[in-house]
C-alpha cells in the first residue's frame, strides 16, 4: 500500500496532541503493529516537539505553522517535517549520553533509536528546515 498524507499544525506545545492524533490516524490506515505504531508516533511527536522547543526557542506566541508529511512507498516510510523557525545547526544536535542521567536531551535519542535514518535536507525555498525521518517497514 502506498500513501501520502500531510497536515499543518500551529507551532506550539498545544499542537503536539493533534500531531499524535494525525499520526495515529495515518498509521491506522496502514494497519501497523500496535507497538511499532506507538514507537513511530513517539518519534514524530519528539521531532515536532524539537521544532517547538528549539527552532522556535524564545518565541512564545506564533501563528507560524509546521507541516508534517507521512508517506509510504514500497514499504519505505518517510516522514517529513517542515518549519520556518531558526535554521537548525546540525553540529549542535546532540542526544544525551545515557549514562549522564539528567532531564532533557532524550527526544533526539528516541528518534534515532526508532528510525533508520534522520536527515536534514536543504532542498526547500518555502521552508527553513526540512527534516526527514525514514524507516524501512520490510524489516518489521
Amino acid at each position, binding site marked *: 500500500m502506498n500513501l501520502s498524507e500531510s497536515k499543518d499544525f500551529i507551532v506550539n*506545545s498545544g499542537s503536539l496532541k493533534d500531531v499524535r492524533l494525525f499520526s495515529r490516524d495515518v498509521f491506522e490506515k496502514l494497519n501497523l503493529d500496535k507497538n511499532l505504531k506507538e514507537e513511530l508516533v513517539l518519534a514524530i511527536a*519528539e521531532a515536532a516537539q524539537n521544532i517547538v522547543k528549539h527552532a522556535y526557542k524564545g518565541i512564545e506566541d506564533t501563528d507560524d505553522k509546521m507541516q508534517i508529511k507521512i508517506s509510504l512507498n514500497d514499504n519505505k516510510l518517510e516522514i517529513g517535517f517542515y518549519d520556518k523557525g531558526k535554521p537548525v545547526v546540525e553540529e549542535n544536535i546532540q542526544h544525551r549520553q*545515557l549514562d549522564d542521567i539528567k*532531564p*532533557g536531551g*532524550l527526544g533526539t535519542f*528516541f528518534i534515532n533509536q526508532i528510525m533508520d535514518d534522520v536527515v536534514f535536507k536543504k532542498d526547500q525555498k518555502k521552508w527553513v528546515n526540512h527534516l526527514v525521518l525514514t524507516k524501512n517497514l520490510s524489516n518489521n
Partner: protein
Amino acid sequence: MAYNVKEDGNIATVYLDGEIDMDVTEKAKELIMPLIEAKKEVHLNLKDVQYMDSSGISVLIESHQKAMELGTKVILKEISKSVLKVIMMAKLEQILNLE
C-alpha cells in the same frame, strides 16, 4: 492530563491520567515538586497514563533527583505498558524506583 492526590501520613500518592507531553510537564512539576519539597515519599501511579514522551521522562528524572537530594524518594507504581517501554528505551529502569 488529569490527576488525583491522596495523602496518608508521609506518603503522597499521585494518580496521573492521560497523556504526558511537553504541554503538561509544567503542570505535572507544579503538582509533584511541592510534595517532594515537603519531604513526602511520593508514589506516582502511572496505570492510566497512556502516553509519555521525553518531556514526561524528564519530569520523572527531575523528581527522582530532587527527592534524593532531600532525603526522600519517588516510587513509580503500576506503570502502564507504554510508559514502561519509554522508561526502558531511556534505560532508566535501574535508575528510577519502579514497583
